[in-house]
């Protein structure tokens, strides 16, 4: 990984490790490296985070997860921006995914995190 193994020292942690540290204090992170809960499909890699204000939750999640990453103009998303961390972790921040709700894709080899797609839904949604 770009920043080496996690040692507990902030100075040696990768940008992704720092983001996971920050996010895991606010969001449920399973030991397998998935955020939120399994969604309607039951697929482990498609997750759902529900909130009263999913847009605000999405923005905060995306802000933390892209700290230290660079926007990649080479990837054209249908909406939103793709970011690349120095260790190769890619984060796609989609303010409006095709589902209508905001979503974030994570592609990573970081041992604390699994590749996944997270949909941010309102609490009232079925």
């Amino acid at each position, binding site marked *: 990984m770009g920043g080496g193994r996690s040692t507990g020292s902030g100075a040696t942690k990768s940008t992704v490790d720092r983001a996971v540290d920050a996010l895991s204090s606010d969001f449920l992170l399973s030991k397998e490296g998935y955020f939120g809960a399994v969604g*309607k*499909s*039951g697929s*482990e890699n498609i997750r759902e985070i529900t909130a009263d204000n999913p847009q605000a939750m999405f923005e905060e999640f995306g802000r933390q997860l892209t700290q230290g990453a660079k926007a*990649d103009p080479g*990837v054209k998303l249908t909406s939103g921006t793709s970011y*690349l961390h120095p260790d190769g972790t*890619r984060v796609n921040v989609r303010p409006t995914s095709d589902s209508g709700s905001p979503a974030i894709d994570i592609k990573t080899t970081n041992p604390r995190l699994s590749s996944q*797609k997270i949909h941010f839904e309102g609490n009232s949604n079925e």
Partner: protein
Amino acid sequence: MNELTYFMTPSALNHLAQLVGTRWECVGTSGTIIKNLITCPALIVTSEIAVALTIQDNEVLVGGEYRTLTQIYESEPDGNVEAAKKEGLVFFHGKGERVTSVSVIREELTEIAEGEETFHLLSDSGVVIALESMVIAIQRRGFDGFDFVVNRASSPAELEYYPTERDWPMNLRVTYEYARHLISVD
């Protein structure tokens, strides 16, 4: 059940077939390289032809939820090859060797939820290029990937691939069947 098929176009396959018999130069990108990861476009360069592969976003409603299932398409290399060489964003392993065969990597995934198939996906994810003394795989990083991984080995049997199936873990409710095929284009 949803049937999803994302194959490279006949034109792209034709250009890849034209690599056979030419002299290998390099694989690289005008974007970023991180270890064996290259961002788009992936530039495949021989003495006579350059092929650029790019990955397109695609969100699809399958199994009740939207998923990212990207597609590979061919783009124009334009000035990207010279830019990649100038920036040192290329792998020259095998340079000067003749390309002896080219195969498309075609990956297949079936999702089974509570005993019923929800979707069946066939997706082209890259190429394997055989040179005289080695083989090189340029493979998309999973069905939802926007980057390529480059691996090389001295023989096809020793070649490592991106572990696509690892991105689709099973649980008590949902299981997967995964397969990888190599389809010769020459």
